[in-house]
């Protein structure tokens, strides 16, 4: 019998990037594009916020994709098919705004290409023309290419080293599209803080409504601790209950990046200890 929070499937999408299908009908029947869950692997584990990248309400399953960067994501990655995840909470955050905007650009970068996927899919379903730009360091790390192709009218690819698609950054491709004079009605960006900042600087020049899905350090995920606070339009906002999507032109990305680095030393120390201890 399938148990709550059981891992039903697991794939390695790229080195260090894993996809899992989890059984949780409560969340699967409720979740919408743009929302996330918080998972905790074991008693000592951190609370990890992860975007829900796909779901099946009928089967009661949801899909997550994560990159093994710290101790917690490594621990999650060690779980296999049939294992249970100790805690799964959600859906958290506000759903992405989906309606007929016209022509929409969806930008996804790195592991977070998976998180733009459901947003692009829903925007496409709503009748938008969807141009997607996805990018990664190299071809090897490029995930969800076929998934994105399936929900986009046009798919543009960039890699830092040119091993797939255009050599460059997603922001370079974005700039070219906007420079070409194509009428774009909305842009949604999901990537690292630096990528989102660079893309936003481009779209500001063209005064096109731009949405960014922010990824700060988060603990509770429900408005209690304030760890995930960001500065939007000069005001303090909580990503977990007021976001995660905000008007990118109003976001102070420097504050976001600064706060993301708050625990760098501790994170690296813990990871070193974890890996040296045999993982």
């Amino acid at each position, binding site marked *: 019998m399938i148990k709550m929070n059981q891992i039903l499937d697991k794939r390695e999408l790229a080195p260090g990037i894993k996809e899992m299908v989890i059984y949780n009908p*409560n*969340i699967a029947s*409720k979740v919408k594009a743009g929302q996330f869950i918080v998972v*905790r692997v074991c008693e*000592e*584990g*951190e*609370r990890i916020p992860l975007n829900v990248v796909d779901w099946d309400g009928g089967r009661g399953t949801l899909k997550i994709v994560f990159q093994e960067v710290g*101790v*917690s994501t490594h*621990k999650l990655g060690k779980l296999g098919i049939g294992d249970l995840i*100790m*805690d*799964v*909470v*959600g*859906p*958290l955050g506000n759903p992405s705004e989906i309606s007929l905007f016209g022509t929409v650009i969806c930008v996804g970068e790195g592991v977070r290409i998976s998180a733009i996927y459901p947003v692009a899919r829903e925007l496409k379903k709503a009748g938008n023309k969807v141009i997607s730009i996805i990018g990664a360091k190299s071809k090897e790390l490029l995930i969800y290419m076929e998934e994105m192709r399936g929900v986009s009218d046009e798919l543009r690819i960039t890699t830092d080293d040119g091993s797939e698609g255009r050599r460059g950054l997603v922001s370079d491709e974005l700039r070219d599209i906007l420079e070409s004079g194509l009428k774009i009605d909305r842009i949604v960006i999901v990537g690292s803080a630096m990528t989102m900042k660079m893309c936003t600087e481009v779209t500001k020049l063209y005064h096109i409504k731009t949405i960014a899905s922010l990824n700060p350090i988060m*603990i*509770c995920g*429900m*408005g*209690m*601790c*304030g*760890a995930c*606070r*960001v*500065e939007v339009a000069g005001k*303090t906002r*909580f990503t977990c*209950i007021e976001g995660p999507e905000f008007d990118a032109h109003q976001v102070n990305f*420097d*504050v976001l990046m*600064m*706060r993301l*680095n*708050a*625990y760098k030393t*501790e*994170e690296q*120390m*813990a990871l070193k*200890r*974890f890996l040296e201890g045999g993982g």
Partner: protein
Amino acid sequence: MPVKKRVEMRKLPVEERIKSFNEVMLGLTEEQAIEEAKRCLQCPNHPCMEGCPLNTEIPKFIKKIAERDFLSAYKIIKEKNPIPAITGRVCPQEVRCEAKCTLQRVGEPIAIGALERFVADWAMREGVIKEEVTKAPSNNIRVAVVGSGPSGITVAANLAKLGYEVTIFEALQKPGGLLIYGIPEFKLPKKVVECEIDHLKHLGVDIQTNVVIGRTYTIKELFQNGYRAIFLGIGLGMPRFLNIPGENLVNIYTANEILIRTNLMKAYLFPKYDTPIKVGDIVAVVGGGNVAMDAARTAIRLGAKEVYIVYRRSEEEMPAWKKELINAKEEGVKLQLLTQPIRFIGDKDGRVTGMECLKMQLGEPDASGRRRPIPIKGSEFIFKADTVIIAVGYRPNPLIQNTTPEIKVNEEGCIIVDKHCRASMNGVYAAGDIILGEATVAEAIGTGRIASTTIHQDIREGRI
């Protein structure tokens, strides 16, 4: 006749306290408890009870302690209070029951809190808690309790005993609400809370953790799922800020973040536990309430060299309870009074290095009855700190309100209820901080008791 001196509870020595999260107040021994109980005058008009939001039969239980009949003392307390091991530790007896004690006029009041705690701890140790369960047969009526803090525990326990099928929905991974994530281990050991939660399970209460009402289910969905009544004991879920420039610099925390990392996620055991926490050498805690004291004492234990309470009024106006302030001072927490931060200052990496502050003076009393702090012109100065903890209060979390506008709230966002704890949506009830604003554990239990009585009556009389 001279009044005997009050028996004081033993405390962990300061040097041991500041190096660990072990409980500071060690409780009374049996002999100490009996000696203290014998000081009670057994006043026929029992003024102490007026000071108790739960109306606990204080003289009665104290008399039983004096007679060494701890089981009877426990039963008397339990009639009114489902979690005496907790209130015995975190209730402000100094301004409540003990303040009304007749002995107060001629000497020191009876240590009512210490005695309550003694009895509750004795019952826990002896394992009598589980034997005390008397439960009506199930009536097959389902009631949802949202939140597992003191008011939720009270409602769940009371209704379960009456035969209701109670489900508690807790958003975090562990039940107990602020008793788990908020109040530090050194004041309220988590095993005490766990014991009270076990008691609920023993009563047949189903506890579902990791369920966020307003996200996982809405209130309407709970009704659709067959719950006849819904009780909201959701507390004040969001921290307040100072709303001054620079508050998002690195190493500026809300008190809740420090407390959640430490208490719930056990970050003080990092890297054994995965959640990290760090405080710098000089920690400024902004605020003068009990949470500020909890955060300051936590910072001391996390290794800060100097910890300051930065408060805009004087010590006299501090909302923190005396016993909290005494413990904090003993552990080395310093007071920076009549000081109001107006701006945070950071380095090139965005880490806080200090705060620009204004010196204040006290004017006429304000609406709270405390003297109003007035800024002194031109008194700006820099207060250096490499960690800042903001502990200036809480406000309601809007998640339930956003998905259920039928539940009316006041301008502060607190749920509006009638005097029987009924909210504006039929079948919905609320108690504790979410109706009272920032209150105490005892008031949460007290209003929770009203809510459970009302729910039972409304169901019996067919109103819902």
